[in-house]
């Protein structure tokens, strides 16, 4: 199902009341739905990963982004990140770590473990907006890119079988598409001389 531009659902994890309230507001102002929890354990419960079956239908509210504090009692944000990336069901959800400490080895470790980004606290509105745009682009792009790749493959076959020139949508040969899937047909198509390049607005 196509996600509307303003329906990102963010799971925010922070043991601080004050920070939870602020991050919730930042996200709501940025037109995101928010679920704020106080610990990694609660986050896993919400995501259905803690082994216990909860009564709430987890799939009813798909999470598009997990925003977690690093230093929390019990389970750290890093440990939460690991558990999410180890789960086949949830590993695709982007995870962003927040911390008031800029400790480079810590940042590296999180990024290596698959964190999308590391935000320094206190988090600003501009940080959240940037994050939201990045995630939205990722979500939209994935679906669109997949579609274009599929179109591209079928057109490529036609191109080789059929000597008549096929006009390709120019968007198929944008830099972005080529970078994301270098082995795809979009890349190989772009190398062919194309007499017609209609502009698709």
């Amino acid at each position, binding site marked *: 199902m196509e996600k509307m531009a303003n329906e990102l659902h963010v799971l925010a994890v922070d*043991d*601080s*009341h*004050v*920070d939870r*309230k*602020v991050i919730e*507001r*930042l996200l709501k*102002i940025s037109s995101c739905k928010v679920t704020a929890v106080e610990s990694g354990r609660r986050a896993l419960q919400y995501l259905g990963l803690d082994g216990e079956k909860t009564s709430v239908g987890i799939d009813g509210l798909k999470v598009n982004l997990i925003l977690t504090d690093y*230093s929390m009692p019990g389970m750290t944000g890093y440990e939460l990140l690991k558990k999410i990336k180890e789960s086949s069901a949830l590993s695709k959800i982007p995870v962003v770590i927040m911390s*008031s400490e800029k400790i480079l080895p810590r940042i590296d470790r999180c990024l290596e473990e698959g964190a999308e980004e590391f935000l320094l*606290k*206190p988090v*600003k*509105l501009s940080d959240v907006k940037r994050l939201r745009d990045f995630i939205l682009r990722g979500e939209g792009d994935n679906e669109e890119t997949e579609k274009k790749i599929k179109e591209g493959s079928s057109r490529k076959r036609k191109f080789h079988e059929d000597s008549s020139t096929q006009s390709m949508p120019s968007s198929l040969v944008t830099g972005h598409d080529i970078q994301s899937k270098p082995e795809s047909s979009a890349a190989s198509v772009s190398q062919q001389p194309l007499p017609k390049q209609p502009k698709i607005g």
Partner: protein
Amino acid sequence: MQRQAAYMRRSLFDQEYLDEQFIQLEELQDDANPNFVEEVVNLYFTDSARFIRNIELALANGPYDFNKLDDMMYRFKGSSSSIGAKRVKSECSQFQEYCNQRNIEGCKRAFQGVKQEYATLKSKLDTYFQIAREAS
């Protein structure tokens, strides 16, 4: 009244009780959420009372666990930072320095500083919000 509120607000920044983060919070306030800043600050006061009490207890007698003390102060400092409490944050850092040095007397002295700055800030912000409310 409005001028008084504006004046007080200005001086809170000039005297470095508050920093940029407080302005960030103000920017999150709107007609639909007109008391957002005060709500966050009140939450901060509630949490702070607990943090301060716990640190006080931990400092009461030995053996002293400096890691635990540092951790507790780290959390209080984080909250303080989130509302822009500049002077309080600075005192917290001082306390953490003494923790690193395993200097309990230093910690106790620094903690007095933390409590003092916190009390002053609380008093000023309580007054400020009262004036601001009466002005609107």
